[in-house]
């Protein structure tokens, strides 16, 4: 177990592509940190640099109190779980799990004991003699987890480990992975593009966009006070409504001329962006007219899509709230309105 320290980490590929812009952060001992962002945002590159599979162009990476920039992946005492499991197809489940230990000169009996223990933990005891090709996707995922566990690493690295599983299994494994990490108390870095995984699993989330860190924070912080419109619309489903508006004397007016019953922060004026989460609105109250065009039934909720002052807008209401198409007044909770700069998208 160890803390991970990234200082001025920077990655430029030989072809000149800047995958990760200079960034620094610390992952605490035992913490579960999720790197989230759209594809190509640099999250996997960052993880692979921590693993040692990718060279660090600039900066210092420490695991525990050891600088590991030039340490071989095998000597970093880490374990990685890959998206497509990356099991050795010619080895049995037991051999797959024990291979990393064998190379550390651990005795056969000790390896077997550790493999057995991990297999028990993961309900794999009946499959130890099978080949990966004889297992289901979920079982393969467990073997990959087992391979990581038996090494008793300082650090777990997960590279979108659940994205090849079907939705139901994914939800189940999400909980299992989280519970396992809690139980073992091993520091973990988890890469995903799925904001639900990020929100549900993380102690802290790092949101990346275009090779840059947009925001670091707990799931609650990220959701309640997104640092930019990117974070606001990436985290949360359905995404936050972001409207073009102008502020003068703290009065917010949408670009089409509709005045919103909220007051902008004193410092802001001129063109801005107004963000409102779909669930922070009440139908049938207030005076702002919302033109509903499509109603999506989600079972527990109903999602209304339409326009507000001519701009795309969604409202999320409870299932027992009747709703149809047409214009309907909508009430805005003034405390739940976010203001962003129109120039760079950052929070005001």
């Amino acid at each position, binding site marked *: 177990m160890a803390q991970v320290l990234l200082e001025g980490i920077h990655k430029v590929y030989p072809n000149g592509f800047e995958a990760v812009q200079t960034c620094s952060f610390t992952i605490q001992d035992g913490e579960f940190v999720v790197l989230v962002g759209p594809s190509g945002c640099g999250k996997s590159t960052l993880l692979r640099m921590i693993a040692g599979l990718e060279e660090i162009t600039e900066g210092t990476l420490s695991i525990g109190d050891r600088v590991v920039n030039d340490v071989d992946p*095998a000597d970093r005492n880490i374990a990685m779980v890959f998206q497509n499991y990356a099991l*050795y197809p010619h080895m049995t489940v037991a051999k797959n799990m024990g291979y*990393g230990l064998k190379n550390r000169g651990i005795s056969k009996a000790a390896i077997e004991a550790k493999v057995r223990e991990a297999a028990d933990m993961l309900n794999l005891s009946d499959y130890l003699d099978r080949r990966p090709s004889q297992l289901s996707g979920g079982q393969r995922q467990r073997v990959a987890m087992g391979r990581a566990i038996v090494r008793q690493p300082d650090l777990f690295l997960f590279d979108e480990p659940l994205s090849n599983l079907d939705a139901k299994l994914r939800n189940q494994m999400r909980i299992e992975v989280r519970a396992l990490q809690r139980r073992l108390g091993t520091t973990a870095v988890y890469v995903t593009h799925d904001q639900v995984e990020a929100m549900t699993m993380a102690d802290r989330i790092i949101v990346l966009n275009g090779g840059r860190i947009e925001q670091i924070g707990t799931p609650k912080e990220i959701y309640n006070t997104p640092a930019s419109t990117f974070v606001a619309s990436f985290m949360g489903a359905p995404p936050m409504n972001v409207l073009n508006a102008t502020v003068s004397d703290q009065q917010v007016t949408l670009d089409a001329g509709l005045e919103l019953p909220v007051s902008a922060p004193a410092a802001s004026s001129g063109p801005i962006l107004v963000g409102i989460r779909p669930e922070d609105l009440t139908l049938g109250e207030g005076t702002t007219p919302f033109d509903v065009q499509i109603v999506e039934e989600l079972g527990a909720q109903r999602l209304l899509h339409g326009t507000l002052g001519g701009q795309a807008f969604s409202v999320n209401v409870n299932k027992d709230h009747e709703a149809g198409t047409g214009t309907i007044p909508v009430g805005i909770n003034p405390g739940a309105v976010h203001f962003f700069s129109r120039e760079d998208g950052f929070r005001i």
Partner: protein
Amino acid sequence: MKRAGFTNPWLPILLLVPQLSIIAVFFYWPAAWAIQSSFYLQDPFGFGSTYVGAENYTDIAESTEYRKVAWFTVYFTAIVTFLSLSIALLLAVKADNVLRGAKTYRTLLMWVYAIAPPVAGFLGIMFFDQSHGPLTRFFGFFGWDFKLGVDYFDTATAMIIVAVWKQIPVNFIFFLSGLQSIPRAVREAALIDNGSGFRRFWDVTFPLLAPTAFFLLIINITYAMFDTFGIIDTMMKGEPGANPMTLVYKVYIDGFRGNDLGGSSAQSVILMVLVLVLTIFQFRLIERRIHYT
């Protein structure tokens, strides 16, 4: 596999006829003819033949000459197969690590494959030429007086070198594509599990290459035993005398130079049985155990 349904039972037969007739005309008919003629003593000038029973076979079994050629074939096949596979594997592993220039390298190496065996043999003669062959000079530098076509051992060495050289490109291409089909994540997982590149290769990479390697093993054995005819023919410069030759070449020499068609047929039958055994070995014993998916 998907089963195709035919309503007319004659249609599949009709579709198979072209292929079957080719096999029949070019394999079964000559094979049957060889088996038949292996029991006869043919008149060298084509005036009839005499039934001699298994005499052709017993002659072969007792012939020290045949035994010598058979042993040479075994050594030749083993050495050519081993060297062409291992050198190609080494080159493929090295090329796999290189990203830039890999394509050019592959193309350059592939050119050798396009050379016809007799031309390869002829190039071999030039390289091993008694007076000005660069390889002869090279060996001479180490005090080895290389005599192609005169010294049994020297000629065998030259044949092996040319045969290996000719076969490396094919093996290389197969090994390289085999290496590149190993998922990157599996290699990376191995990178985290094992710090030694050498051990990683033998524990992970090579077992995953095994299906390719086994396929190539069979291809190379077949190549060394049968397809090196052109190289051998060119390199011994039409003087079989004291020179080494393989069983296939001996079939030709005895049949068409020695005009012993019966004995030559008996030798072909033995080779056919050998191929049959090799095929059974391939399908039954190993191929089944070596695939993982």
